């Protein structure tokens, strides 16, 4: 430890040294104690709401806890080992839900969270600064609107004529009208989630583009490059890391967030048409519309996501310059 830094001039005798070392040990203990006191509330919450739940869910996924035996007696459940996982693999709908999830995540990510985000940040950085800021701020709106209100807006946009706003435009242009949510459920789900997702990538890309050295931009301007050439040869190469970061981070958030789908289609229409993995875990364990909540089986679905989350989170830590971020504090103790 670096406590010795703060001690005044070094003594030569061994007694003094002993005294110093014992004093510094007390100091060190005190310093540690103060630090732990500051960290205690955070540590306690992390323990109660992250660590213990992870342990519980892994345990739960190996039990048969469900409504049929879930009264008030937790002892009524049985440990069934990997039975839930065996059922999951053989579940005829699990495969469909799995592919649904991949489809949903890849398309939403590709079209909105990355592509549209990139387009919006490129457009807003190439116009008047103030106007660009206003447009970016407007893109924040979906994120700060309560999900229920946001979904209400979208329902109203896509609902059948004469109430639907899009269908009103269809009628004006004498085009056929559609009940979009019933006929094109995936499109609506992706639009709704995509419009929320754009802001994350937009902010990251914008700050990356704005941090490109002015000299570089000026040089390319002097050389007479067109906008497209500047994007291709100056901006894009410098966006590689932000792009990778947005892709990995948003993949995980798309995989695990299901609030909008829950409110919009609740997995329908029809049999699991827009059901995704995280929503299934929720449906099985927590949404007891049909009175059969399968805690154990639902947990098995969730554990897959929890493990994936842990792995991805560790990957972020390793890849995104973690070493610099946890550098030792400059001056530690007085």
């Amino acid at each position, binding site marked *: 430890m670096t406590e010795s830094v703060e001690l005044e001039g070094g003594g030569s005798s061994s007694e003094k040294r002993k005294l110093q070392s014992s004093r510094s040990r007390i100091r060190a203990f005190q310093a540690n104690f103060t630090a732990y006191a500051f960290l205690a509330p955070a540590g306690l919450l992390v323990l109660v709401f992250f660590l213990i739940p992870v342990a519980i869910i892994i345990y739960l996924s190996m039990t048969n806890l469900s409504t049929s035996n879930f009264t008030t007696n937790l002892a009524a459940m049985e440990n069934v080992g990997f039975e839930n996982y065996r059922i999951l693999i053989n579940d005829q709908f699990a495969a469909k839900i799995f592919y649904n999830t991949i489809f949903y995540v890849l398309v939403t990510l590709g079209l909105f969270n990355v592509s549209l985000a990139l387009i919006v940040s490129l457009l807003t950085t190439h116009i008047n600064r103030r106007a660009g800021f206003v447009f970016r701020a407007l893109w924040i709106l979906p994120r700060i609107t309560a*999900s229920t209100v946001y979904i209400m807006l979208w329902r109203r946009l896509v609902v059948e004529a004469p109430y639907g706003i899009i269908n009103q435009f269809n009628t004006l242009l004498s085009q056929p009208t559609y009940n979009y949510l019933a006929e094109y459920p995936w499109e609506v789900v992706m639009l709704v989630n995509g419009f929320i997702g754009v802001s994350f990538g937009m902010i990251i890309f914008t700050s990356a583009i704005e941090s490109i050295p002015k000299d570089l931009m000026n040089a390319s301007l002097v050389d007479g490059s067109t906008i497209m050439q500047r994007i291709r040869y100056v901006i894009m190469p410098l966006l590689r890391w932000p792009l990778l970061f947005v892709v990995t981070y948003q993949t995980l958030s798309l995989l695990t967030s299901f609030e909008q789908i829950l409110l919009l289609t609740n997995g329908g229409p029809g049999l699991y048409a827009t059901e995704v993995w995280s929503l299934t875990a929720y449906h099985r364990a927590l949404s007891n519309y049909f009175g059969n909540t399968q805690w154990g089986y639902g947990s098995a679905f969730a554990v897959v996501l929890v493990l994936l989350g842990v792995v991805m989170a560790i990957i972020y830590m390793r890849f995104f310059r973690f070493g610099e*971020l946890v550098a030792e504090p400059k001056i530690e103790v*007085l």
Partner: protein
Amino acid sequence: MAVSNTLALKHKIQPDTPRRVFANILRNGLIIIIALTLVALLLIVLLKPLLASAQVEETVTTTLAQLLVLVLPYLVYISSGSTVREYVKTHLGQALGLALIGTLILYSIVTIGQFFFHIGPFVQASSLEMTLGPIENGSIVEALVPNGAAELAGIQVGDVITAVRRDPVDRNTLIQMISRAEPDTPLRLRILRNGEELQLTARTVLSVNVNTEALLSGLVVALIITIAAIFWPGNWTPYVLLIVILAPLMLGYLWLIIATFSYRTEGLIPLDGQNNLGGWTLANWDFLFGQDIVNLNVNIWQITLNSLIIALSMTALVLLISSMAGYALSRMNFKGRRAFLSFTLVLHGFPAVTLLIPIFFVLAYLGEMPLIGKIIGFNKPLGIALIMVAFELPLGTWLMKGYFDGIPWDIERSALIDGASRWRTYWEILLPQIRPGILALGVFSFIAGWNAFLVPQTYSIGTGTVNLPVFLSQLINETAATNWNQIAAVGLFQLIPVFVIFIFAQEYLLNIYAGGTKGSS
């Protein structure tokens, strides 16, 4: 830069000649045609069957392919125009001529492609092979295709089609009905001919309804687009694109505001009880004064109070706990610092929402504990707030640490030398220094708590923790479409604080919604 240097050189070495410009027009157009067609084919031929074999019920691939096919011609003409944008400054007439000839050639290529794939003007649709015009009580037959489906059924020019079976139809509905019918569907048409009514059954056929007029007007549109693309002020393009992309969202918010102040709405149009334009009313806001909402008798202020308790307690706790942890991580060296920091970072990336199931049990257990259970157990707003505090904590700690890192050590050092305790230094000296950080995280936490839906929804069994978003979802689930305007009013009521924060704290929000990556990217 070396790369752009070589680009510029290439540009200079080969000056624009008419031949080169023309070649560029054709090349760019063809690249767009080929690229978009390939992507569309990839979607339809490869991706769609692949997804179907994985049991995914989707129409997204088809929709995307249709969109590509729809925009393809316009993109081609725009590219043709914009290719000569530089050249037109020096050689106006020549450039115009080249662009128009280029568009003409590209138009014929596009049209041949459309003919080949049966799309655009050559689309195959169910039809009765007749032309219909609008008339007061139905649609009038204006022309018939010789030996077409309608003629075979005995329909004559001048007939008025009033109904299909017994359902009266106007022209648009009838056309829609015909085009959506499967081929060879019998349609029993009720017809008025010279004042007498008769019924004829016509069978739809799959046909390509091409008229040269459509092709010709398509060409005119193509040429106009080309010219527009040449003279279009280039600095408008980003604005137009940004507005078009944002339009659906803005229309949604516009509807919310219109709807709350009107009797009912169709699309964006406010209507009164007699379907007349207008119908402005404040009646939707009666719920604020204790009136029923959608026939539900609830006390909106109790629900608002729940929302506020969740939001405010969450804000206070997140700020306190994460700034304490951030301070320790930024300013102190202790055993396990590195471990705690990396763990915080892992948690920052970890999706907490996957832990909803086990937290149910944690909450149940906490609720049974003697003293604490009364405050943070089930159905207690504080319990809900505490879960959400835990969810926000990794981000908050990380953010606060970053802000503390940015404060120079000197101020704190002098306080410590003067004998102030660590706690006092943190509370009185450092917290005021990081006010922007506190404000940003506070705004973020308040919005998160105010909008909380999933956690209160999942863990509220009674009414103790019903907040505004949960209440809204109950309203939406329980009512018919007729009362939407009252629900919209509740929605706008919930949105008002968010709008206010949005107006005054955009900059903080923009910074924080990238996940507090201020320090990490």
